[in-house]
């Protein structure tokens, strides 16, 4: 993954890898509803949570576990941005 990859790109790559999806990351649109498109159940969502904490070195608080925050790549990237330190 290049250094200038966007949060969305890194998320898509992580999702494809950790869920063993047989699609290319570029085939995931930012606003695809992940649960519908990839039949995401609780264990796959768990995998996404763990993956994004690992990839972005962030830690989610209990009250951030709400379903709408994980609906799409766009929603997840919005959440990630709130957890990352502001750029200088």
């Amino acid at each position, binding site marked *: 993954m290049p250094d200038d990859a966007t949060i969305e790109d890194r998320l898509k790559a992580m999702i494809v*890898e*950790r*869920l*063993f999806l047989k699609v290319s990351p570029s085939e995931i649109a930012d606003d695809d509803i992940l649960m519908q498109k990839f039949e995401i*159940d*609780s*264990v796959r*969502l*768990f*995998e996404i*949570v*763990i993956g994004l904490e690992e990839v972005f070195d962030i830690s989610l608080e*209990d*009250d951030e*576990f*709400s*379903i*709408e925050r*994980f609906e799409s790549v766009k929603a997840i990237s919005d959440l990630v941005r709130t957890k990352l330190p502001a750029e200088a």
Partner: protein
Amino acid sequence: MEEPLYFPSDGFRLFGVLHLQEGARPPSSESRVTGHASRIGFVFCAPFGEEQKQAYRVYVEMARRLEGLGFPSLRFDYRGTGDSHGAFAEFSLAGALRDIQAAAAFLSQRTGVARVGLIGLRLGASLALKSVECGVRSAECQEPEEAGSGGTRHAARVTPLPSSLVPRPSLLVLWQPIVDGALFYRLNIRRMLVRQMMTHGKATGERDTGSAETIDLDGFLASRAMCEEIKALRISDFGLRIADFPPTLLVQFAPTTEPTAEVRPLVERLGPKGSFLSFVMEPFWDRLGYIDCGAAIEATVAWVVGRAGPRGG
């Protein structure tokens, strides 16, 4: 032939299933000398909680495969888990280690095998590795502990098994061991929060168990002391040198064939005693749907046969 049975450990009655090839009999001292019977058997060390449920059938299939090749084995439930006696809150890592030792001693005594190998997945793999340390430095694993109030134990205090009765592991099979207990604990909490989110739309946090001494660990009533034990578990802290390891197979399940950052230090530590296999497949212990583990089972059995010889002779 599969025989469901109970065997003792620290006063607990542990449930197990003994796999012994049809017609096989515990060898006499003469047959041990002439090599008529399998000389190595295997104890399956179970993973923890939800992972144990998901992996149950894989253990059954691997034990049957070994049985078909003449290797006896014992699958069992730790104290306080599955069909074994005791409350779940009485499960502890120290207790589980003693249960593994009791299972190895029972298997050896019941089938006459001279050597015992340990096969473990996730926490079971970490405990199998810890058992090696117990064999090398027994003082670290033999401290007596107070018996709890529940269950059907009879001993007021634990009497360690005589070391002469506990075979040191002579082969190790480690399927994706937990290398960092704190991370594992965190994953269990995360799994619970995600389930709550899927059910209620958002997480509701730690659930009241009615006792300050226990917590709901993803559906399992765990003692806080056990949770602290798990958090403190770090394979890198095990006091083992290369010379201490028996031949060991480390199996990884990951998106890559190369050792991940998680297991690479253990691969390096095992050195020439270690064999490494990676399966590019989903972590079957963490999935709801069926995942075919046949290739991993076959590769593991082939490694075992290669190290133990036909029928362990």
